[in-house]
């Protein structure tokens, strides 16, 4: 009796999850295969006419291959900001964990405050303007690095605490310099947490909408999310094309999810529970 109750409860949970979480994705996918007349009905019905290739081709070719350029821009911004982020935060996290002093506590606190404080928008534009970086990829990249620094530093300094100080002492006996020691010995040991940071931050940066909207306006440097936002008004009568765009933009996180599922979950929880 209890056993069959449990099975019914489980079936119910699965059914509910499917309705709530899978149908929205199915809705987008199936409607991106229809022609615009059928898609405008916004239902889940199987398409009478499949128009897959035409839809996706049109979205990709729209506005002189805007989407391709946007994907390239987003990929570039994501990769460069993560490379910078990993190096600067690994170094900072290492020092913040190994050295203890009053001024450092304040520095640590300022980094952590970055997790809570909402970034000031127009003043950031003012700063970017002052150094000639407003509306540039370089400016946006450094913004992305700056806002992801607090989280990365928490993860790095937490992980450094698990590396025994004996390694440092041995290196000292060998007469290693601090730079040499860090890059040869410490950085390789940080690999597990580095991969967590790479996966999580790449999702953040690739999906970021707000910062490109403010700091990289203009069509020529559009990022993938900005393009999707612009297509919302461009395709407000051709849902099939808009949904095809949504599908294309969901592919990168989906791939990442399929490959790194376990790592993402582990990393998110490590960061969140400690923070």
């Amino acid at each position, binding site marked *: 009796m209890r056993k069959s109750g449990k099975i019914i409860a489980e079936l119910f949970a699965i059914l509910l999850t499917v309705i709530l979480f*899978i149908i929205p994705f199915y809705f987008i996918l199936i409607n991106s295969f229809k022609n615009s007349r059928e898609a405008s009905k916004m239902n889940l019905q199987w398409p009478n006419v499949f128009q897959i290739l035409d839809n996706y081709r049109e979205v990709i070719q729209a506005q002189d291959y805007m989407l391709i350029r946007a994907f390239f821009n987003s990929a570039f911004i994501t990769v460069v900001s993560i490379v910078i982020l990993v190096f600067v935060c690994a170094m900072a996290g290492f020092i913040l964990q190994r050295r203890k002093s009053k001024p450092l506590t304040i520095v640590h606190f300022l980094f952590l405050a970055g997790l809570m404080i909402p970034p000031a928008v127009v003043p950031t534009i003012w700063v970017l303007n002052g150094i000639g970086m407003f509306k540039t990829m370089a400016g946006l990249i450094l913004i992305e690095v700056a806002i992801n620094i607090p989280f990365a530093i928490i993860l790095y300094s937490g992980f450094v605490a698990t590396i025994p100080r004996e390694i440092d002492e041995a290196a000292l006996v060998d007469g290693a310099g601090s730079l040499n020691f860090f890059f040869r010995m410490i950085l390789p040991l940080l690999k597990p947490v580095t991969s967590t940071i790479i996966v999580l931050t790449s999702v953040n940066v690739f999906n970021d909408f707000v910062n490109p909207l403010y700091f990289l306006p203009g069509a020529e440097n559009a990022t993938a999310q900005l393009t999707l936002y612009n297509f919302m008004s461009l395709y407000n009568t051709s849902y099939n094309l808009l949904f095809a765009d949504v599908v294309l933009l969901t592919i990168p996180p989906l791939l990442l999810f399929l490959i790194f599922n376990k790592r993402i979950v582990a990393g998110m929880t490590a960061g969140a529970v400690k923070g």
Partner: protein
Amino acid sequence: MKSTKSLYSYGFLLPAGIIFFIFFLLPTIVSFFFSMTRWTLTDWEFIGLDNFIMFFKESSLNIGFRNTFIYAVMTSGTKVVLGLLLAVLLTSGIRSKDFLRSVVFFPTLISTIAVGITFSYLMHPSRGLINTALAALGIQGPNWLGDPALAIYSVGLVDIWKGVGFATVIYIAGMMSIPADYYEAVDIDGGNAFRKFWHITLPLIRPAMNSVIILSFIGGLRTFDLVWTMTKGGPGFSSDLIASIIYKQYQGGFYGLSTAGNVILFVIVAVLAFPLYRFLTKREVDL
């Protein structure tokens, strides 16, 4: 013998410190000044607290306080409770738990814009899937995003849909770290599943629960992109949040006013979230 301190060069802090200072701290610091000016980026005129007074007096601006507060409390409160229930379900040894975990978690990774677009169609008043399904059950569905009294709650529901998986995963991690013998002790005492949950799980997942509360509450206070994609703060100003007002004033060229919005948001986070964090972490139970 030399101290290992020679290996811990303060210079290592510089790259992160400089980037963080120029692109985050400096704008935050100058925001306090520029929030008290009429500002064109190249030129400013000091006007004292006028921007703040405007923010509190104008109904199109001060609606942001109410909405931001409702939104943050509604989304974080629901994520805290629903996330916990899901986590209990997904650690209860059901066979499909890996599948369900992945499905619930996946929306966390897709872009907010994509989610916003999808749901603004699902919530379409006449043809949308949600109201079609409700109609099949004989219920007349509301105009989710078009009704000024409802729009902000509808966006909040989508936020919960997207974010509850994150809360669930944090809870699951917290539950995994509870030693199994604690539960065995309850078994020996003849306690049931509810006693296990109430006396073991609940007190010991406090750190995880605190993370969920803080992260989702601050996230709610700062939300912009979902509301912007789904309603643009409308109909009228009915679903405007402080963050969307900041953007609208920026678009309108009212840079001083926009920055005042930023300072207000900063103060709200400092006044609500920071003490909340202190209060919660004080009451954590050590394992």
